[in-house]
């Protein structure tokens, strides 16, 4: 609220109306509906449903396949987050340092942001192709009998590499902008205080980047959980079979292929809670972030 707020009554209501009605119809209604149907068991033929309480949830935790997918999602998220953050950090530090060609590097390292995940996945299909993919040849040369879509780990590796590739630009952009917002004089003061570039990085630069890093951590976790859907769906060509998949993919499979409304809704609700927890965590970190500047 600004000090000199306008006092009209109907105008702000009219201004808020489009946003509020879209949210009501396409957010609150569906979300509420999901919560509700997660407590019901849908008749397979679509005639009515029975209230089953938490059964859909307990079924899930007892379901070993679901737990396996949940575990894969955790591993996948950790690896994608770790690799895309650390590669991007390394590149950002170097791009921030060089003088010659700095702009070209920046462009070359960020444009992939605009590539759609399924398009990335499609290129993955070609690169990791079981018979003709150069990545397959590469892994075979390393002595690994790489077989995408046949071998669980092979498929998982392709998921991770493509997902990391697609996520590096965002992290790179944020890290670079974080680095550039460190005052030049602070770095120079550090140069006078410390000869070792590596030590300077860990003592000064890295702590000053920590707020950006925490923020990106959340962004990357969200990305790995949700935005990789297009990559996974393309790589498995819509037929996951025994291949690894993430929780969101499972929601989709159960809801749209398996017609298990209750189970799928319960899974949605679990994901909602997960995101909620992450966001609360993020808000607490943002408070710290403001502290530095």
């Amino acid at each position, binding site marked *: *609220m*600004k000090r*000199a707020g*306008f006092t009209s009554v109907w105008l702000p209501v009219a201004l808020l109306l489009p946003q*509020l009605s879209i949210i009501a119809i396409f957010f609150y209604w569906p979300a509420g509906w999901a919560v509700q149907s997660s407590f019901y068991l849908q008749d397979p033929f679509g005639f009515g449903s029975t209230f089953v309480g938490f059964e859909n949830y307990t079924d899930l935790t007892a379901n070993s396949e679901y737990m396996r997918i949940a575990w894969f999602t955790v591993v996948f998220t950790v690896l994608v987050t770790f690799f895309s953050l650390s590669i991007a950090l390394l590149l950002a530090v170097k791009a921030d340092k060089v003088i010659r060609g700095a702009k070209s590097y920046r462009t*070359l390292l960020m444009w992939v942001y605009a590539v759609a995940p399924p398009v990335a996945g499609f290129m993955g299909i070609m*690169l990791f192709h079981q018979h003709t993919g150069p990545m397959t040849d590469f892994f075979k040369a390393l002595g690994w009998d790489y077989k995408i879509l046949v071998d669980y780990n092979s498929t998982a590796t392709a998921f991770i590499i493509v997902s990391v590739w697609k996520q590096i630009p965002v992290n790179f952009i944020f890290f670079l902008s974080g680095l550039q917002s460190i005052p030049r004089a602070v770095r120079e003061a550090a140069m006078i205080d410390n000869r070792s570039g590596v030590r300077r990085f860990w003592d000064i630069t890295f702590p000053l980047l920590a707020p950006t890093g925490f923020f990106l951590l959340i962004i990357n976790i969200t990305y790995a959980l949700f935005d990789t859907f297009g990559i996974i769906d393309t790589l498995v060509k819509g037929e996951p079979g025994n291949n690894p998949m993430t929780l969101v993919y499972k929601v*989709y499979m159960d809801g749209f292929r398996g017609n298990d409304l209750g189970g799928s809704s319960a899974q949605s609700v679990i994901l909602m809670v997960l995101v909620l927890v992450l966001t609360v965590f993020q808000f607490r970190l943002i408070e710290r972030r403001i502290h530095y500047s």
Partner: protein
Amino acid sequence: MARSQTRKPFKWAPVFDHTILILGALFMLVPVVLAFVTSSHSAVQIAREGIMFVPGSHLGENYSKAMFEKGGFTATIDGMVMLKNSLILGLGFALGKIIISMLAAYALVYFRLRFATFAFWIIFTTLLLPLEVRILPSYEAIQRLDLANTYTGLIVPLIASATGTFFFRQFFRSVPEELAEAARIDGAGPVKFFIDILVPLSQTMIAAIFIIMFVFGWNQYLWPTLITTDEGLFTLVRGIKQIYQTMIDANSIPEYGQALALAIIAMLPPVLIVIFFQSWFVKGLTESDK
């Protein structure tokens, strides 16, 4: 001691830095370059040899077929139609989002509203849940509203999150108080102030958000896949998979060349926008989170 020109010992650090950056740039670039090179080969050749490392002779053929040859189950859709749909989705989403969120942010920041805090939380809770976690119920909602296979059903639910509103709210709050006060003294009402002062002031912000939203809309996949079963509404991103799958289903050699051509075309507009409006885009991205 007197020297006019200083001799410097050769420094290895920059060489190392550039090496890493070049490797990084290649890592990002090579897959797309290979996809482009491969898209210039015939389907038979790609099916046999996979990714190609030297350009072939089918470039024009693949791209013109991808763009102009009717395909799909119903043989009514070509690349041009998908391109049109992608543009409608990208532009519609970006414009809709900007207009709706600017209005809402304006109401929240510049008016004395009794239910302002409530409205704020109603709106910002939506930041918490991406569409992916509520696809199934959203799909149900669209079915009940009979909006499946319409542009409205495609675009509007995507707008139902507050990223833009949040962004503009932050920006409006950073606009000096004195501006609104001066405008009031000059006799400008709320509508005039918005149009004459706030919107022009927000130009850069609007441009930045527009680029991000356009790319976001253009690249949508899951939602279009669910909501458009009518091939006439397919977007490029949605269509690549379709072409690829119909090929598999037809038990013939997959039209890899065409599909790759389509993939290249699908990434071209957003990539070019991001490259050419780089500074706006980076600004929008890094400032939207504060």
